[in-house]
């Protein structure tokens, strides 16, 4: 056998092996290292700022590399006072958006002081859609809550730039849960944020009660798959879905199908004490949506 033929034969064998690997993206794409996300419990502005500072510092100190998301969940979107919006945190204290911005700036300060030279971080103002209706919020209020949530991310970005925090950026997030409130008012949060338009809006919510096959149908609390698709991919929204059990990856695949082409997962959200580890959740989603899951993985409680 000539040298040329032997070379071609070996090259073909290497190529075939490589092609096999390429054809198995779930195996080729490893789940990213999960990063911590935080629930905010503060009863005073000073306490909230200190908590956020320490969260930013801790995140920077344990940064795994890459451009990763620090999600600070400030609670349910609320009217703080007429014409002023904010969030009710998990200790039952309502903070205005300007107060939340000051806490986000504290998180930026903490991240800056704790930064070790590894990676960069998107600091996100997270909220959720819980009890908006029962707190007297109208659809217009929810729209404005989303609009000014995005505005505050823009304000945070200005703060980061003016202080030379160049390894940081700003975004928002929304834990959109069908069980938390009705679909109409919940969609308004996303529509308002998209109208303001500055911030990428991570939906780290669920597709609770949605079907696990097909491309449409009903979910819990009067929601439809189309509602979940809307709050996760309309305008500036991007999906970072909670994948706690294998069925969740099936449900979100239905959501993707419902939206149609172009739908892309920005990663996933994990938890402890559930059926799947965060990495297993990301893998399950990626296995069903090959090449359509980006490398982000946040975890509350890891």
């Amino acid at each position, binding site marked *: 056998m000539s040298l040329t033929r032997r070379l071609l034969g070996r090259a073909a064998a290497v*190529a075939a092996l490589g092609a096999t690997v390429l054809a198995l993206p779930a195996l080729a794409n490893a789940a990213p290292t999960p990063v911590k996300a935080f629930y905010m419990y*503060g009863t005073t502005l000073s306490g909230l700022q200190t908590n956020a500072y320490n969260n930013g510092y801790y995140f920077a100190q344990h940064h795994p590399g890459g451009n990763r998301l620090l999600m600070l969940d400030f609670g349910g979107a609320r009217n703080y006072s007429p014409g002023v919006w904010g969030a009710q945190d998990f*200790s039952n204290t309502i903070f205005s958006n300007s107060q939340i911005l000051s806490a986000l700036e504290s998180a930026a300060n903490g991240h800056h002081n704790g930064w070790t030279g590894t990676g960069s971080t998107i600091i996100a103002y997270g909220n959720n859609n819980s009890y908006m209706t029962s707190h007297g919020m109208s659809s217009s209020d929810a729209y404005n809550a989303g609009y000014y949530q995005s505005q505050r991310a823009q304000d945070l970005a200005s703060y980061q730039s003016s202080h030379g925090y*160049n390894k940081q950026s700003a975004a928002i997030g929304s834990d959109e849960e069908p069980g938390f409130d009705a679909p109409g008012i919940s969609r308004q949060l996303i529509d308002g944020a998209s109208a303001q338009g500055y911030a990428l809006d991570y939906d780290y919510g669920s597709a609770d009660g949605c079907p696990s096959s097909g491309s449409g149908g009903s979910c819990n609390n009067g929601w439809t798959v189309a509602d979940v698709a809307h709050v996760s991919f309309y305008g500036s929204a991007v999906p970072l879905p909670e994948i706690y059990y294998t069925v969740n990856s099936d449900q979100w695949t239905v959501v993707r199908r419902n939206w149609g082409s172009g739908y892309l997962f920005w990663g996933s959200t994990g938890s402890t004490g559930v059926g799947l580890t965060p990495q297993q959740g990301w893998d399950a989603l990626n296995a069903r949506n090959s090449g359509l899951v980006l490398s982000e993985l946040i975890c509350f409680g890891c």
Partner: protein
Amino acid sequence: MRMKLSKYTSRRVALLVGAFIVVGLGTGAAVALSAGSGQYVPGLGATVPANKVTQVQHALPKDAPESSVPAPAPTGKPDRIPAAMLPSDTPIPLSPQLIHVTNAWLVSDGMTLVAVYAGSAGNDATEGRFVIVRQNLEVGKQTQDVVNVAGAGALSITDAPRGAAVEASAQRGRLGFRGAAGASGSLDLATDAAG
């Protein structure tokens, strides 16, 4: 000796040619994936819908060094929160996929915080469940533990320490509970065991 060198060289050449083919295949696949509507964002390494490009770019770090000027540290301290049951309309951070919450209890001594959410498992209403969120407020760390009570149904906290005097001790105390199926018991926060 000359034969051996040729063999190794030929293997290396074969590997290189193979690698080029693989890279070519991969690039082709990537181009095919990105051929739909959208715009490739190099900083993200992905093609995104055109209407999200601006927001994606806002989420990327700047191509500049981090300032070397230290930021101000906070002057305040984390809040002390007297032990109390949370009002029923307090936002719940946990997904209904994890737990359907019946009621919740919270305490902080300004150094560590414990929040206990009682209810039933999101995927099985017959399974009683506690989710315990703990925060080390001084170092900015959060953990979460899940404690199941098999067959108890939705749990409710019926007896819990309250007030400012127990902000520290209550974090390792006991919470009394009752399940919708009739069982009752206590959750030991020192061990996270229910019985």
